[in-house]
């Protein structure tokens, strides 16, 4: 709210600000007023963005909070207090969904970070063709997720998909396997696709971080006879640690909210086996028009993410201080 007020003033004072500039230029004095105008100029510059996000993000958020205390649908709204939250607290299915979502997040993010690290290391190696390889890993990120998922739908198909086909020829599967039709494999298939979408970005950022490491460190270690693995473990990893932890958090939030992949591959099924919080919310709110119950879920999601991010940052601060990497 404070921001909204100051931004209004900022918009109004544009003319004054131009005047200020002129008087500054003409006189070459009045340093103090020009500092003041810097503030107003800044407010004027960020005002449109702030204002826009207040309408499109903050207002809906406030509205969500209000709705979460309502029984709301297409018909109308009625205040029900904490009933929606109480239902969630008591619902065993919801508890399972929460656990599944965190499992989904940890599994997917760990794999993304691991693969991203491996990929970045490979692409960082001074081998011919690496410029080309760097371009070739990017398509999963470049194309729309929904379109990439169409390819995966095909891959996971039991009758004519390559995974089932090759699996059978190698004798790993004793018959066509519909990856998306079984509870376990549907969940893990969605994880694989999510990792596929997320890994290029992680690789790219870790690669950039690796290239930012001072080469003198490696040279010094090399002169001292340190092997490749040792240099990787004791120089590369600690040096790029800040980027790793930032990427992990960013990736975690993104994965937690990942919707398209699950929706297209399984719609949360079979029998809820791949339903994460976000898919559950979508089904309840948009699918069944239970806006109030959906809103309560959103509030829970935001709180869970908030708690997760704070705990993560807290632990991280301690960890980084302990290892002395900033």
């Amino acid at each position, binding site marked *: 709210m404070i921001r909204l007020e100051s931004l209004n003033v900022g918009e109004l004072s544009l003319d004054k600000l131009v005047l200020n500039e002129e008087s500054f230029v003409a006189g070459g004095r009045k340093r103090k007023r020009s500092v003041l105008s810097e503030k107003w100029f800044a407010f004027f510059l960020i005002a*449109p963005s702030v204002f826009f996000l207040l309408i*499109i993000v903050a207002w809906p958020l406030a509205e*969500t909070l209000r709705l979460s205390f309502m029984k709301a649908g297409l018909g109308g709204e009625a205040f029900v207090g904490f009933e929606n939250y109480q239902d969630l607290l008591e619902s065993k299915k919801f508890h399972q969904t929460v656990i599944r979502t965190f499992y989904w997040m940890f599994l997917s993010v760990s794999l993304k970070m691991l693969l991203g690290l491996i990929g970045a290391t*490979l692409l960082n190696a001074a081998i011919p063709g690496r410029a080309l390889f760097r371009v070739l890993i990017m398509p999963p990120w470049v194309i*729309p997720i929904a379109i990439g998922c169409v*390819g995966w739908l095909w891959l996971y198909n039991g009758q004519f998909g390559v995974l089932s*086909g090759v699996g059978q020829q190698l004798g790993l599967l004793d018959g066509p396997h519909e990856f998306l039709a079984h509870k376990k494999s549907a969940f893990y298939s969605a994880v694989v696709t999510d990792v596929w979408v997320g890994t290029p970005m992680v690789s790219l950022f870790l690669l950039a971080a690796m290239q930012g490491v001072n080469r003198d460190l490696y040279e010094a270690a090399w002169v001292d006879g340190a092997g490749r693995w040792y240099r990787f473990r004791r120089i590369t990893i600690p040096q790029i640690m800040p980027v790793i932890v930032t990427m992990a958090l960013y990736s975690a939030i993104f994965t937690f909210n990942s919707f*398209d992949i699950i929706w297209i591959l399984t719609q949360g099924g079979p029998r809820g086996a791949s339903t994460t919080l976000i898919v559950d919310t979508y089904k309840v709110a948009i699918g069944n028009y239970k806006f109030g119950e959906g809103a309560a879920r959103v509030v829970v999601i935001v709180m869970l993410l908030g708690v997760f991010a704070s705990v993560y940052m807290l632990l991280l601060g301690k960890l980084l201080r302990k290892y002395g990497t900033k």
Partner: protein
Amino acid sequence: MMDKYTKLQLIGLYCGVALFLLFMLLPFVEMFLASLRPLEHLFRSPYQLWSDDFSFDAYSKMWETVPLLGRYIFNSVFIAASVTFFTLLFVVPASYAYARLEFPYKAASLSGFLGVNMFAGAVLLIPLYRVLRTLGLLNSYWAMIVPGVAFLIPTGIWLLRAYLEKIPKELEEAAYVDGASRVYTLRRVVLPLATPGLIVVGVTVFITAYAQQFIFAITFNQTRELQPLPAGLYEFIGYQSVTWNEMMAAALVGVLPVMIIFLFLQRYLIAGLTAGAVKE
């Protein structure tokens, strides 16, 4: 010397790269092969990687199966381009403020912006639906452009700010001393210098907007003529049968615009994206 690899290590490295690329590109290869197969041969069991009946028929027939296909691809490009335009309109001034100017609540408001990233569009769908309804924007291009812009502003500010901070301050100060106003300096001195950064942010925003249309499209827009490709693609899943080969062909053709842009600008893009991340 230090970077020299033995033959064995080189082989190992290339095998690693090959495996990694296989994972990244497998779906595309599969999609391409599927698009070449006649529909009746698609479902052949046991699985065959190569068959001798490949043809490009699907690429011409798909336009008949889904008559609006061309329109969907156009919509995708149009929506992403509009999102890019409006996002830059918001992001350029704001990121300049964060890169150069001192003002109260600077750090707090910046983290406020970045906090928006916490709520991916999916979380806010319900109330957003109502907000868009209140503003009368449902079932129009705006229904997909407006939320797209909102969720890309934070990322845009973050990236462009990092770039602007690297432009030497002296040039602006020189213009300032010469009597140029702040707005003039921003427009005539800073913006031309920031062009590479603008390209990076623009392309990033375009790619992301192109990629993330799906959820807004299926939720906020019921008008068929306005659907972007990812949503329109599902029309190949018909009442009777799914013309998989044409669907794959359409998907591949549909990603061409964004792939072309990426290929031409990837050099800037990769450098620029990572500049923001590695700074600290």
